[in-house]
């Protein structure tokens, strides 16, 4: 009998930076389900709840299938050529009147490397500006900025496999079992097999409950805590003297700085008792191999970059870096945020972190791309929105991001986008951001395209098309290539994703030794992969640091920009729920995930709840100096008293109406992890 159309496509989960292998079951042209892949090196037959429900995200019912043009406040379907023409006319007019820096592009950390490469190339060649950014700004730009100063590279120093090789796991300001579940699961399993677990977090996370030691520090006191730990380490002689001698610089300045952080003072600032500080310092420094992982609890502060530097100081003085099983590992949020950074979807760097304003790099890319490289510094995404409000920025393309929901201070973003002359949104579904657009272009989803994602352990993995895109939808690099041509640039006419990859690998030293054929062989390769390391690199900084010596940089504790006061007496922190992802536009299509958490929620400690007569389910109004939202209460002692938490996935109760736009001075990272709010009970009829 005839061959039934049923297949399983080996690809990568689209949700988080862990990069699990998934098999998409395809029946008659639709994805009907998901199978885990036992031999995948990262996921080893496991998936988390998001991975298991990823088939739902591909339901075509609410997909955008044709270009849409807004007329009199309403969208109408249009042909590609009509939509393109509108964009071309508008962009050309803006460029003529205001210059190229009035234009910009926001790439997407969910898109493939090929898409991100095309996006930054489009900005730099076609638009003629370094105004290119993506959402790493709101997750891990401080990691890149901090670790590049201290070590020379902002990525995870180890591989995920090192979790099983460590003697101690330190989980610092992140919640891996909820946000990087399979990796978090591997941590639980390692602990079951005898590895010690130390958690530093203001919240009693799942891992905190399982931990051998949990330091429940006050919100925003990371640097004080770390300086305190280093102080204890020095006073007990627990530092690794040989390592400091041979591989670090600037030790004296650090010694002087941390002398100002004696245990008693640190206990006062952080709320962590002295004996726990002592125990943690000993555990960390005396373990043979410590795998340290950190997340947004470190980066999403005005002190984000300094927080990262402090962590780096701690690993350097104890020599807990540069060996198997020990190192410093930022857990990146979105599936391809590592790749989006690698590809140079950032204003200050070309692909492979080659400086955008450096003359040699400019010449290299100018020659390769056959164009003039812009000389002026590029804007970050917040820079672009601020300039838009100032009337100096008029045209923007947003690829598959939803800044209206995910960015801090929603009102600011919305007003900025509305102020633009031309907003083009390339999207799968009608997001809150897409609603504000002038033109929407339909994009292909992860299961509809070939390409690569780079996971948090720097593993570049093949993504394979399982089904065709619905309607007229196309991949980002195709769309940008066609637009480029209409705007007079011929250098983006690729026949397929592989051709894009070959071009980017040639220009990105970290990827130079990679090709689709090589990626095929062994479930991907970890960068750097080049002539010197043809099989990729599992461990960074083993003989020496990327920058040579590891730099110790003394940093001081600073309070969050906004602290509770009599008007706004509670701290608000934002969190993620592991059922959901980002703005929820994909995960919320699953009836099961949607059922798990039907509407936005506020987590509050029983003491605070009692004071305000709040019970589980009480409807609340939460307000900050920037806005207010209504949502319902969940009473839990997972938080310390005085702090409330809100997940940011829900457009019905967007926590980012409340959060502060105060920024990290280095990276412009907004302070999403702490702001002051007040809470009132709403009387319901």
């Amino acid at each position, binding site marked *: 009998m005839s061959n039934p159309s049923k297949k*399983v496509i080996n690809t990568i989960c689209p949700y988080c930076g862990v990069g699990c292998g998934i098999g998409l079951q395809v029946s008659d042209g639709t994805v009907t389900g998901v199978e885990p892949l036992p031999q995948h090196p990262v996921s080893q037959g496991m998936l988390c709840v998001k991975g298991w429900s990823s088939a739902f995200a591909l339901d075509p019912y609410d997909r955008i299938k044709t270009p849409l043009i807004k007329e009199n406040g309403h969208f109408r379907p249009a042909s590609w050529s009509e939509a393109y023409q509108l964009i071309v006319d508008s962009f050309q007019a803006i460029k003529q009147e205001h210059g190229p820096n009035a234009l910009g592009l926001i790439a997407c950390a969910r898109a493939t490397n090929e898409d991100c490469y095309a996006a930054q190339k489009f900005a730099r060649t076609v638009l003629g500006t370094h105004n290119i950014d993506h959402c790493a700004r709101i997750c891990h730009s401080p990691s890149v900025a901090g670790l590049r100063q201290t070590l020379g590279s902002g990525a995870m120093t180890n591989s995920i496999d090192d979790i099983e090789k460590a003697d101690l796991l330190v989980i610092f300001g992140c919640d891996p079992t909820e946000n990087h579940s399979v990796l978090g699961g591997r941590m639980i399993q390692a602990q079951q097999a005898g590895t010690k677990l130390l958690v530093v977090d203001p919240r009693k996370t799942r891992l905190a*409950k399982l931990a051998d030691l949990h330091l429940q520090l006050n919100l925003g006191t990371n640097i004080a805590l770390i300086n305190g730990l280093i102080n204890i380490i020095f006073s007990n002689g627990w530092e690794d003297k040989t390592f400091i001698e041979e591989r670090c610089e600037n030790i004296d300045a650090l010694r002087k700085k941390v002398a100002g952080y004696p245990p008693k003072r640190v206990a006062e600032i952080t709320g962590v008792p002295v004996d726990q500080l002592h125990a943690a310092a000993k555990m960390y420094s005396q373990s043979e191999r410590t795998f340290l992982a950190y997340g947004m609890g470190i980066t999403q502060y005005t002190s984000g970059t300094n927080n990262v530097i402090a962590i780096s100081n701690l690993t350097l003085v104890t020599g807990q870096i540069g060996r198997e099983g020990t190192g410093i590992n930022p857990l990146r949020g979105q599936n391809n945020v590592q790749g989006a950074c690698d590809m140079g979807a950032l204003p200050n760097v070309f692909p492979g972190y080659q400086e955008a304003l450096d003359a040699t790099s400019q010449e290299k890319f100018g020659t390769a791309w056959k164009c003039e490289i812009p000389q002026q510094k590029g804007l970050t995404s917040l820079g672009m929105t601020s300039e838009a409000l100032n009337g100096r920025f008029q045209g923007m393309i947003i690829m598959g991001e939803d800044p209206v929901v995910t960015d801090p201070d929603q009102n600011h973003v919305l007003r900025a986008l509305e102020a633009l002359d031309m907003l083009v949104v390339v999207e799968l579904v009608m997001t809150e951001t897409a609603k504000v657009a002038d033109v929407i272009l339909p994009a292909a989803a992860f299961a509809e395209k070939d390409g690569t994602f780079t996971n948090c352990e720097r593993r570049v993995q093949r993504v394979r098309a399982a089904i065709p895109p619905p309607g007229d939808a196309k991949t980002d690099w195709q769309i940008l290539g066609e637009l480029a041509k209409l705007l007079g640039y011929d250098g983006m006419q690729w026949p397929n994703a592989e051709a894009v990859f070959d071009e980017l690998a040639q220009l990105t030293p970290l990827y130079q030794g990679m090709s689709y054929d090589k990626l095929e062989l062994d479930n991907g390769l970890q960068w750097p992969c080049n002539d010197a390391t043809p099989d990729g690199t599992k461990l960074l900084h083993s003989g020496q640091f990327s920058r040579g010596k590891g730099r110790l940089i003394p940093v001081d504790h600073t309070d969050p920009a906004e602290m509770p006061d009599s008007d706004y007496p509670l701290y608000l922190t934002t969190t993620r729920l592991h059922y959901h992802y980002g703005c929820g536009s994909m995960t919320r299509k699953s009836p*099961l995930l949607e059922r798990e958490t039907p509407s936005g929620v506020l987590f509050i400690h029983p003491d605070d709840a009692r004071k305000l007569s709040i019970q589980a389910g009480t409807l609340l109004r939460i307000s900050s100096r920037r806005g207010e939202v209504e949502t319902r209460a969940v009473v839990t002692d997972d938080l310390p008293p005085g702090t409330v938490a809100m997940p940011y996935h829900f457009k019905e109760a967007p926590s980012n109406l409340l959060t502060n736009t105060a920024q990290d001075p280095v990276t412009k990272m907004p302070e999403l992890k702490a702001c002051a709010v007040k809470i009132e009970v709403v009387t319901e009829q």
Partner: protein
Amino acid sequence: MKSYLLDSLENLFQHLAVSHKMFEPQSIPGSEDLHWLPSPKGPTSRYGTSKQVLPLAPAKGFLFPERELLFRFDGQTFIETLPEVAPQVLFGLQSCDLCAIAYQDQFFRQDSYYLARRKATILVGFDCLTPCDGGFCSTVDAGPFVRDGSADLILHPKGNEWLLIPASEQGLNAIQTLNLPPAPAEWRAEREQQQAEVAKMFPTDSHIRTGIERINQATISAEQWQRLGLQCLTCSGCTSLCPTCSCFTTFDTKTEGESNTFVRERCWDSCLYEAFQRETSGHNPSKEAGERLQRYWFHKFSDHYVDEFGRYGCIGCGRCEETCPGGIGVHSIMRRLEKES
């Protein structure tokens, strides 16, 4: 029933392929993992004496798909959408998975969607001559040799030849025109003997036995369940891969463009989800992860269900152990129950 001597698996396969769609566990490009896939060309997996590897995803979805259309509503009337399934053969099932299908047959005995698929399906089972990794079918009476009545055709390796046992009416009909010679008389008895020998090759199962005992005697405290429950990341992997899990939920999706038309689908549910049993009022009889975990394992190993289904809900495949990110699949949890009593 009579049994036959089959000298070539190829012949049987091609014979069945004339009038059936053939499915078999196979690997896919970029990986050596096995998946159930169409197999138009002939037996691809290695059967016989070599070590058996179970596909991590069982054949459950052929009969009870992960998502299934139940009906359409066109604004006026409800239109039932029973699946139309062409005759198909699942070739290469192991005994454990066959026991699971027999279990599902009972659960779904009145479900017209399941029955439509089931009636079109021939099950070809193979005896396992060596244990697979993580399997413990012999502990829960689900293998290693195919149980009578669980398959349509049973294949048992005999050197380069095969003992073919038609185990149902449908199986017998399917091979009638092959005109196979009868198998040597002593092969059936030898098979019985060999089963006991293979069963002895499995690693120790004391933890499973202890765990089953503790679950049935209810000697596991709520705190112990709660401690274990902390490790459940509610991924739904165990229930998705468990070949006997059958819970589903329904949901409606609006049909594109039109306003008051929709389709209702059902999809696999998981009893580990917090909202699985949550009522509209917000009340939840199994609010704690520990309670949900307890319920899950109760359903797999309680003697209560033996009365109803004639066997435990667990068929000993070990898939939950392989997929559970929290480290509380069947072996891990039973070891903890053994250790932490």
